[in-house]
């Protein structure tokens, strides 16, 4: 399986890259880690006439403290997200999720920006971006814009990105100190794309009750979703087995997954119910509690 021919461009700076995107836009694809685009090119499912290699743009590989936000460059590799102490400290949900992406070798190359743009409905980083309310920074030769991740991700592998634009950074609101979180994904094998994935953060008040909850689901629709209505139900409750079970049921009821010959919608709902409940308990440090 060999890719169709393309003209290869290797810009040395972001402005050069943006110029190339402006010139070749509809016929060009930016190349990040290549872990998702590579297979598509090799199978000729994608056949851009121009490939714009972003890997020299080290200016896009960074983690920056920007006040209440952590700004991460689009070229930052999954492995860095999985292991950097500052991510562990300020965005533990992101660290948890990044560790589960593919395999060790894949994580050396795959990038945050690439994952967001690829927008696989089951992917980890789009789910975390939506759950944490991240902002996606997009640039072109025409200028820069910023939009919430939930708006950026439009549908299955479809994003709000013009033909001449590149995702240069994602801004994540720093997670609250002491906030519990859990990330879980269900797949047939270790490292596979998720059938269903759950991202959850939880803040508790002095009495131990849930004061704030963020719950995101992946793999249950064309894009990852936060279930705001379910989150609201958890506020004020103790994160015990009963609350977890109730939350799980609500989450399952709140989604309408598509039927699929291999993975029935009923099964996805059951997974959501189970995984949401377990994630809640895990985030509260109470794994193994039974109703």
């Amino acid at each position, binding site marked *: *399986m*060999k*890719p*169709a*021919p*393309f*003209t*290869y461009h*290797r810009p040395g700076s972001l402005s050069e890259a943006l110029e190339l995107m402006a010139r070749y836009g509809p016929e060009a694809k930016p*190349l990040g880690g*290549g*872990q998702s685009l*590579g*297979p598509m*090119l*090799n*199978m000729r499912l994608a056949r851009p*006439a121009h*490939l714009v*290699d972003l*890997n*020299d743009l080290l200016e896009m590989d960074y983690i920056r403290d920007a006040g209440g936000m952590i700004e991460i460059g689009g070229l930052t590799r999954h*492995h860095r997200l999985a292991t950097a102490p500052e991510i562990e400290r300020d965005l533990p949900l992101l660290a948890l999720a990044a560790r589960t992406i*593919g*395999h*060790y*070798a*894949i994580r*050396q*190359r795959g990038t945050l920006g690439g994952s967001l743009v690829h927008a696989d409905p089951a992917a980890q980083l789009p789910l975390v971006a939506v759950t944490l309310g991240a902002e996606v920074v997009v640039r072109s030769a025409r200028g820069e814009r910023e939009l919430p991740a939930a708006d950026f991700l439009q549908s299955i592998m479809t994003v709000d990105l013009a033909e001449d634009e590149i995702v240069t950074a994602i801004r994540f609101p720093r997670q609250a100190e002491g906030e519990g979180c859990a990330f879980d994904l269900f797949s047939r*094998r*270790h*490292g596979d794309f998720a059938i269903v994935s759950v991202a959850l953060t939880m803040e508790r008040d002095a009495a131990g009750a849930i004061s704030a909850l963020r719950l995101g689901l992946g793999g249950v629709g064309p894009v990852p979703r936060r279930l705001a209505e379910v989150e609201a139900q958890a506020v004020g409750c103790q994160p015990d087995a009963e609350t977890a079970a109730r939350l799980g049921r609500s989450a399952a009821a709140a989604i309408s997954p598509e039927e699929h010959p291999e993975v029935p919608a009923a099964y996805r709902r059951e997974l959501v119910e189970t995984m949401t409940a377990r994630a809640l308990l895990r985030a509260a440090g109470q794994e193994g509690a039974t109703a």
Partner: protein
Amino acid sequence: MSAPVPISLVVNGETYDLVAPPRKLLSDVLREDLHLTGTHVGCEHGVCGACTILIDGQPSRACLTYAVQMEGHELTTIEAVAEGDWLSPLQQALHEEHGLQCGFCTAGIVMTFEAYLRDNPQPSEAEVRDVLSGNLCRCTGYQNIVTAILKAAQVMREGQGA
């Protein structure tokens, strides 16, 4: 568009100058242009891991990389691991523990773990399996490979006086 371009690659410390189309995969260039056939091709979609080499010291799929991208980087392939008669602790352990059968997946596993053990000298069995899950083996069932990797890690720690 598919016209060959000059490419200069540094592989195992040596510089190679060749000419290849931009779309030619690194796995094919290594094997065909540089005659380094120790890196194997198993799927060309990044799943099986047989083509894993080191790019700037980190394991990566050669089948998901274009050779032209690798100018300015340092590539390491299986041919660089042993030195004459000397096998690395990992290679030696795989031999002693019968951690290979047909050998087709072996180079990818060696490259992955030469890098991983360098950065993670004391992995648990779970961690080893987690990293190994990126390399498919159809012959061994992985058990002896895991044993070999843990053994190699211990040998390497002892070698460092740890």
